[in-house]
C-alpha cells in the first residue's frame, strides 16, 4: 500500500516536472530528490556513502568494505559482554576527539583502558535516568563537534530518533554506536551499518544486517585470539576444566 502511494507520488512529481523539462534533466531531478537508488560503484558523489574508518581489525575491515562508516550510526545488536566494546576500542583509540559513553551497563574500567594504551582523559561517561534524556545527550554530543564517537546503550530506538542521530553525527563529523540487546522491534532503522554479534566457541560471529551502499554479506567470525590477544586460548583443553576447581587449586 505504502509502495503504491510512493509510486503515485513519484509519478505525480515526474508528471508535473516532465512538462517543464526534458528527459535528461528529469533524471537529475529524481536523483536530486533521492528517489533513484543506484549501486555502490556508479553512484554519484553526492550520494556516496560517507568515508570509512578502519575498525582496527583487518578481517572486519575487509568484510565491511573499509571499516565503520564515518560519520554515521552503527547499530550493534548483542548480549552485554560478548566483546562489543573490544570491537570498538581500536577505533576509539585512533581518534583524537572525545568518546562519550552514555548509560553503560556497568562501570567502564579506566584501568583496563589504560593497559590498552588508551588515554582515559578522552572518555566521558554520562548516566541518565530517563531514556529520552540519553537520546538528547547523544544528539548534543554528536553534533557538538568535540566528540568523535558516542556509545549509546539504549533499547528502544524509533525510526525518527535514529534519523536524528544520523543527522547530528553528520553535523558534528562523528560516529554514533547504538548498543542494544534482545532486539525485538521489527523494521529496519535508518542506520549506516547494522550488525549482530553472537559469540561462539571459535570467536565472535558477526552478521551484517545492513551496510549502506554495500552488497549483502555472508556471516563472518572474528577469532577470539584476534579480539583478545592477551587471553591465552585454551581451546585445545576446553573439555577438562570445569568448576569446581579442585585441579587448579591443587596445581
Amino acid at each position, binding site marked *: 500500500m505504502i509502495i503504491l502511494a510512493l509510486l503515485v507520488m513519484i509519478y505525480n512529481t515526474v508528471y508535473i516536472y516532465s512538462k517543464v523539462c526534458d528527459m535528461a534533466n528529469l533524471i537529475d531531478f529524481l536523483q536530486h530528490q533521492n528517489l533513484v537508488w543506484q549501486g555502490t560503484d556508479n553512484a554519484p558523489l553526492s550520494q556516496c556513502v560517507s568515508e570509512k574508518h578502519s575498525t582496527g581489525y583487518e578481517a572486519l575491515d575487509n568484510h565491511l568494505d573499509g571499516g565503520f562508516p564515518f560519520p554515521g550510526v552503527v547499530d550493534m545488536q548483542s548480549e*552485554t559482554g*560478548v566483546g562489543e566494546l573490544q570491537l570498538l576500542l581500536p577505533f576509539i583509540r585512533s581518534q583524537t576527539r572525545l568518546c562519550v559513553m552514555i548509560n553503560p551497563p*556497568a562501570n567502564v574500567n579506566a584501568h583496563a583502558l589504560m*593497559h590498552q594504551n588508551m588515554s582515559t582523559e578522552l572518555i566521558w561517561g554520562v548516566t541518565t535516568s530517563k531514556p529520552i534524556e540519553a537520546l538528547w*545527550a547523544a544528539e548534543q554530543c554528536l553534533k557538538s563537534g568535540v566528540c568523535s564517537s558516542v556509545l549509546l546503550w539504549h533499547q528502544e530506538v524509533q525510526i525518527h530518533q535514529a534519523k536524528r542521530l544520523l543527522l547530528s553525527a553528520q553535523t558534528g563529523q562523528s560516529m554514533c554506536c547504538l548498543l542494544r540487546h534482545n532486539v525485538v522491534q521489527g523494521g529496519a532503522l535508518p542506520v549506516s551499518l547494522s550488525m549482530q554479534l553472537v559469540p561462539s566457541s571459535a570467536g565472535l560471529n558477526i552478521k551484517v544486517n545492513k551496510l549502506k551502499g554495500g552488497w549483502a554479506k555472508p556471516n563472518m567470525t572474528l577469532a577470539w585470539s584476534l579480539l583478545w590477544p*592477551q587471553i591465552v586460548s585454551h581451546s585445545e583443553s576446553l573439555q577438562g576444566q*570445569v568448576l569446581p576447581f579442585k585441579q587448579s587449586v591443587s596445581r
Partner: protein
Amino acid sequence: MLWLYLHFPQLQLDGLLVQDDQLVPTIIVSGRNNMVMQLNASAHKLGVKRGMGLGAASSMSASLNVYEFKASYEQKRLLELAQWLYLDTAEIHLSKPCGLLIKVSNMLSLHTDLAHYWRIIKARLVTQNVQYHFSFGYSPLAAQLLAQSGFNRLCDDRVQLATELGKLPISSLLLSERQTLQLNRVGIHTVQALFGIPLVELGRRFDNELVQYVGRLQGKLHHPVEFYQPPEVFEREITLLYELENLDYLIKPLFKLLKQLEVFLRLRDKLTSSIALVLMQRDIEPLCLTIGCAHGEYRAQKWLDLCQLVLARTQLLAPLQAVALKVDKFCEPQAHSEDLFSERIGTMTRAGLLSMLQAKLGEESVFGIQTTPDARPEYASVRSEPALHAAPAKPPEHTAPLLRPNLLFNEIQPLNDKVILLQGPERISTGWWDGDDIERDYFVAQDRQFRQLWVFRDRQKRWFIHGVFS
C-alpha cells in the same frame, strides 16, 4: 592637587529620618559614655546639645526618642555612599569614621570647570538624604579640617582657602591633647600662627609627629591615601508583575536580568563561570539554583539556554513572586590556543558541551574516568571530573600490561553458572591498611554463552563475578 572632603556628621540619624521624617525629637547616644552624639532639629529646639549626658537630655522632654550609636551602621553607610559616588568620580578614599576624601584634580579634565563637577556630585548626594559639610583643599588634611569646621563653600582659590584654614583654632586640629597643650603654652592659638613657623624650627622644639602633621596639612609632605575599589558583585532582582506558576513564562524576565549581566560583564571585560538564580516563592523558602558554565561566558543568550535546561528540571512548590540573579565570581577571558591548521568542526567547545549536559542532566551525571594507584580493582578506576583539555601525550609505560575487563560490575555478583577457566590465577592480596583488605585469585572464565568473565575466588573459596570482558 585639589581635594574635596565630604563630612557626614549624622549618618545614623539621617538613616532614621529617611524612614520616618516626622519631627519627633530624636537623639543618638554613645553606648560607651552616654553622651549625645547626634540630634535632630526638634531635639535641638528642646535645648538638647551635642556632648550632653543622657540624663540631662532626657530631663528636657519626656517624649525624647533615644537610639544607641552604632559605628558598624555608619561604616556600612559610608561604603554605600562611596559606591554611589563612584559612578561619578574615580578616586575616593574612605576617611573613617564619617568622611569621604575625593581627589578632584584628575577628574576636572572631564568637566568644564569645578562648579560643574560640584553640581554633579551634589546632585548625587541629594538623592541619598544625608547631611554633609564639604570643602575643597590643596591637601587632604586641609580639606578635611575645613569641611569638619563647616566651611561649605565652593572655592578653589589657594589664598582664600589658606586664610580660612588659618582662622581655625589649634584645638580643631587632629592632634593629641599633649601636643595641643604644648602649642598653647608657646602661644600658638591659631593655625595661621602655626604656619608662621618654618618646619625646620618646628622640628627643633616639637616631636617628629607634629612636624609630619603640619607638613601634610600644608601640602608640603606627601600624604598617602588608599582609594576605594568597588566590589565586583552583580546582584539584581526582578519582582514579577504577577505570580507565575509555569516556569516557561520566566524566560522573558530572566532574559532581562541576563542582559544586564551581559552589559555588566562586557564593560569589565570579564566572564563568569557560575550564576546563582534565586526563585522567591510565596510563603516558602526561596529556591536557589546554581548554574555553571565550565568555560566562562558573558552572553545573555548562552546563559539563557543553560538556564532553560536547568529550569526544565526544576519543580516549583509555590507560585513564583520574584527572581534574583547573583554573580560574585568572575574570571578573565582566556584566549583559546588551538591548532590553526587542523579543521574545526562546529562552534562548540568541550567546556560548552559539558556545561550544557550538566545543566540538563545534573552535575554528577557527567563524569570522566581515571586510574588511581591502587591494586584493588574496584579502587583502581574511579570517576573524576570530566577532562576539559586534551591530555598531553604520555610516554608508554614500561610495565607489562595487565589483563583487565572493560566493564566492572558495581556490585560483585556471586557466580552461579558453570564456567570454563581460560587463564589465571592472578592473586591480589592487599588493602590491609584501611580495613578493606582483599585476598582474591582472579581468573578469566568463559560461560556457556561464550562470554568472557572476570571471576575471582576469595579466601573462603567462594566464587564471584567482578567484571566482563565486554
